[in-house]
């Protein structure tokens, strides 16, 4: 019988069982890497580096997992924090930030080959809306779980998802016309 995530976490806690942790990594690597690829706007190498950091950090801090939320929610929160810390560092080092990137992107001047690409439309959303849409619409999280991951109030998550969805629809409609 396959062990649940909590059962595997218990094995890691009690026996320091790295095979059990390996199983957890195998189970969640796709969703975590996928989320980070979207957050980094398709930078696969960076997303994989951040995913590795997130899994290593999760292992080191596994004692702080209390089982109040799902393991995946706890893991996403760590992954999101890794992404934010990295984005902050990059902003300080290179001087590129979210607003600047946003300003440079004009939906009307996007490469025609990408016009119908939903993921490209998603990448045009501001970070707070993009993360909320990714977690709730793509990863199927509840608003409450997304609020835990993003560490923002529940109402803000709902607003961000709503606005993000509206903007996506508008962008796709504009490209379609």
């Amino acid at each position, binding site marked *: 019988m396959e062990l649940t995530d909590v059962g595997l976490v218990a094995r890691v806690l009690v026996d*320091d069982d*790295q095979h059990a*942790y*390996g199983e957890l*990594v*195998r189970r969640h*690597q*796709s969703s975590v*890497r*996928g989320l980070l*690829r*979207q957050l980094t706007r398709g930078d696969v190498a960076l997303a*994989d580096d951040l*995913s*590795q950091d997130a*899994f*290593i950090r999760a*292992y*080191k801090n596994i004692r702080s997992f209390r089982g109040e939320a799902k393991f995946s929610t706890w893991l996403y929160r760590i992954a999101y924090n890794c992404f934010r810390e990295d984005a902050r560092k990059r902003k300080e080092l290179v001087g590129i930030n979210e607003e600047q990137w946003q300003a440079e992107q004009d939906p009307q001047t996007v490469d025609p080959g990408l016009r119908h690409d*939903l*993921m490209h439309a*998603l990448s045009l959303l501001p970070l707070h809306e993009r993360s909320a*849409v*990714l977690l709730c*619409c*793509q990863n*199927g999280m509840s608003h409450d779980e997304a609020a835990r991951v993003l560490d923002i109030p529940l109402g803000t998550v709902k607003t961000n998802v709503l606005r993000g*969805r509206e903007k*996506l*629809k508008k962008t796709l409609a504009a490209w379609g016309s």
Partner: protein
Amino acid sequence: MNGEMEQDWLDKKLQEAAPYIEDDGFTARVLAQLPAPQVRFQFLRPFILVAASAFASALTYVLSDGGRFIIVEMFKITTIPTVWVVAFALASGMLVMAGGIAAAMSKSSQIQS
């Protein structure tokens, strides 16, 4: 209704646009970077507990003049009036019951939230 359908369509498309990412050695790379497991002496734990209990018992026996205080206290208990014993048992029972109810209410409110 139309808005809901559009929403479902968008969510479905977003989910389809996120294919499963093959592991391709990712898990192995993560495991290779994990800190080495700490050496633990867990097998010693029961021995330590038994030894500590035995030592504490022996110390208590010696310091209490062969456990004489137990006999004295037992004798005192036998002199307590029966009504007091019944009242004490009743109060203890009610206290435990109140604790149980409080724990159950707290748990049920947690589950509901």
